């Protein structure tokens, strides 16, 4: 480790002298914190994802060129933006985006394998999750290189929206092959969704592109991805701010203390210390 210079019982970390015991203790704390943070983000981000993107990510016949491409990145960028602020502003760690999407990926695979495949008999070809790691990596790299939340929002946010469709295309293309069933044209994904009965999610509930957007030669994914990128820029800014606000310890002046007759000056000093 280049940042660490051993020197008897004293060690230098990032230009500051630490006793070896303290350095070891801090490392133990790091390991604990990483484990706890990873599990917490996995649980929280996964719940958020299920409640918002939900069906679009659950089913192969919901992953359309319009709503899925637009919505998923906008909702996915919340957690990376907030966590990036916490880790960058306090620790100069450009890993918030990747940490979130990697945690989500693991959470999603656990739920698809156990909840959908083993418990509800849905085949993986119906319930595979989208990948979103590329977007998280770009966010982190842009934050590292620019060191600035605004440029990360503009460049990283736009890239986050744009990259979602192409990065999932290698996974999705085999499910968009055309086939004929009952004298009708459907994609393989449509047929998988049709074959494996979802009792409470009939066909018409699919919130998908039903008519063609009359731009860009009818390829609505391009329009959707750019629109998603623009909104990602804005949501990134909002969630960066929320991440900052949540990581600050906030105290509210305690009115009760005034009411109890405590001198105002003393109260203010106590709060500044807090």
């Amino acid at each position, binding site marked *: 480790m280049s940042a660490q210079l051993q020197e008897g019982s004293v060690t230098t970390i990032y230009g500051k002298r630490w006793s070896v015991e303290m350095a070891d203790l801090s490392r133990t704390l790091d390991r604990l914190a990483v484990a706890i943070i990873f599990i917490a983000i996995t649980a929280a981000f996964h719940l958020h994802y299920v409640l918002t993107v939900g069906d679009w990510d659950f089913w192969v016949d919901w992953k359309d060129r319009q709503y899925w491409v637009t919505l998923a990145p906008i909702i996915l960028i919340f957690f990376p933006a907030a966590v990036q602020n916490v880790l960058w502003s306090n620790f100069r760690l450009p890993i918030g985006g990747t940490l979130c999407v990697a945690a989500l990926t693991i959470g999603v695979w656990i739920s698809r394998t156990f909840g959908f495949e083993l418990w509800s008999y849905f085949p993986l070809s119906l319930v595979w999750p989208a990948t979103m790691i590329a977007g998280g990596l770009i966010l982190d790299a842009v934050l590292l290189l620019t060191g600035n939340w605004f440029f990360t929002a503009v460049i990283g946010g736009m890239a986050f929206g744009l990259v979602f469709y192409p990065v999932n295309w290698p996974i999705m293309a085999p499910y968009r092959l055309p086939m004929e069933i009952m004298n009708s044209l459907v994609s393989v994904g449509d047929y998988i969704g049709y074959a494996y009965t979802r009792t409470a999610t009939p066909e*018409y509930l699919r919130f998908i592109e039903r008519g063609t957007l009359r731009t860009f030669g009818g390829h609505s994914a391009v329009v959707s991805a750019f629109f998603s990128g623009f909104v990602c820029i804005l949501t990134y800014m909002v969630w960066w701010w929320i991440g900052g606000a949540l990581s600050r310890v906030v105290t509210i002046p305690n009115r009760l203390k005034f009411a109890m007759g405590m001198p105002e000056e003393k109260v203010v000093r106590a709060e500044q210390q807090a």
Partner: protein
Amino acid sequence: MSRVALSLLSLLAALLFTEVASAHGERNQEPFLRMRSAHFFDVTWSKTKLAVNEEIVVEGKFRLFKDWPVNLPKPNVVFLGNGTPGPVFARVESWINGQPAIQSMALKRDRDYTFKTVLKARIPGRHHVHPMLNVDGAGPLLGPGDWVEVSGRAADFKLPVTTLDGTHIENLEHWATGRVKAWHAIWLVIALAWLGYWIRRPLLIPRYVALREGNEKALVSHTDLAVGAGLIVVVVALVVGGFVYTEAEYPRTIPLQGGRAVVEATPKSDAPVTVIVDRATYDVPGRSMKIAATITNGGQHSIQFGEFATSNLRFINRAVPAAVAHVDPRYPKELLPRNGLKVADTTPLAPGETRKVELEMTDAAWETERLTSLINDPDNRVGGLLFCYDDRDERLVANVSGSIVPVFMDVASAQMRMTH
């Protein structure tokens, strides 16, 4: 916050709904839904025992009721589903009036349709299988259910198809899942490498302290910046490369198909029987439904009243041989109430004749099928289909609907009270 609560609630509701539809919970649906929405009839199951990979055909007819409840959305977007415990069967085909029912469609009230669903056994077990209509906004409307036993091993199940570009897919269950896993693995490895690159260093407190003391240069080195730039190059190259390669590999793909199908209803019978309900009562302690109606035979032949069908229960009038002959011996017994339909006046109704008729159905089924909670509804109406048979054994199906009045005392105890 309330949004999250709402989402959680709807998730819970969805879970419960799945439960209602799948776990033989059809009795939990409100009586007005079951009596006045979709009436299924002539339903058959081609077999009750089959092995994994074998097919079963569930077919029959349904009428979307004329007296459709006002609080239910009209059947403008309808999907032919199957009421099974999730995907224990794979639906390989489904038809409404000969049109493919892979998409949702608009149907008309007071009209009849035939349906046919072909299911391929997938998960072994004893499953309750219903035909089902999903109506947008109204939820699942279940037809009659029968028990079907599936034997064999789930692992042996295969669903092969051939695409239009000639690709033969051995089994849709596993189609392209290798690619899914491979791409997820590639990205996860890169993500973990990036995380590892940073996490291997002294992390939280030392970095926090160094940053507070303004020693930012020690935290992010030139090498780190170069690695970050390299990461962008790798990610962009992988995304673009993967996309271009896939486009070349699969040049002919189509978007999800989300159109709505159009289907014509079965033509209406030109020999109508009209039923006007004068008074319908439900005797609560006696479990007896009585419908006094004025019935007109608008056809050319005299008719008899053979069956009253509601909520997938078939009350058969055993005095009418044609009605008895119309019951498939394999039809689920629990849907054929033992006491059946009783009609006091058994003389056939002549062509053009109008007569007051009393239909009586006394059976514990009203209770066991939980139809009696009807009297708690704000829209207290009874509905069903009356199957009439003419002298050529032709069947005419009439709508029956009207307000229902509950009787809370049985006649015997009422008389007792009067004598005291």
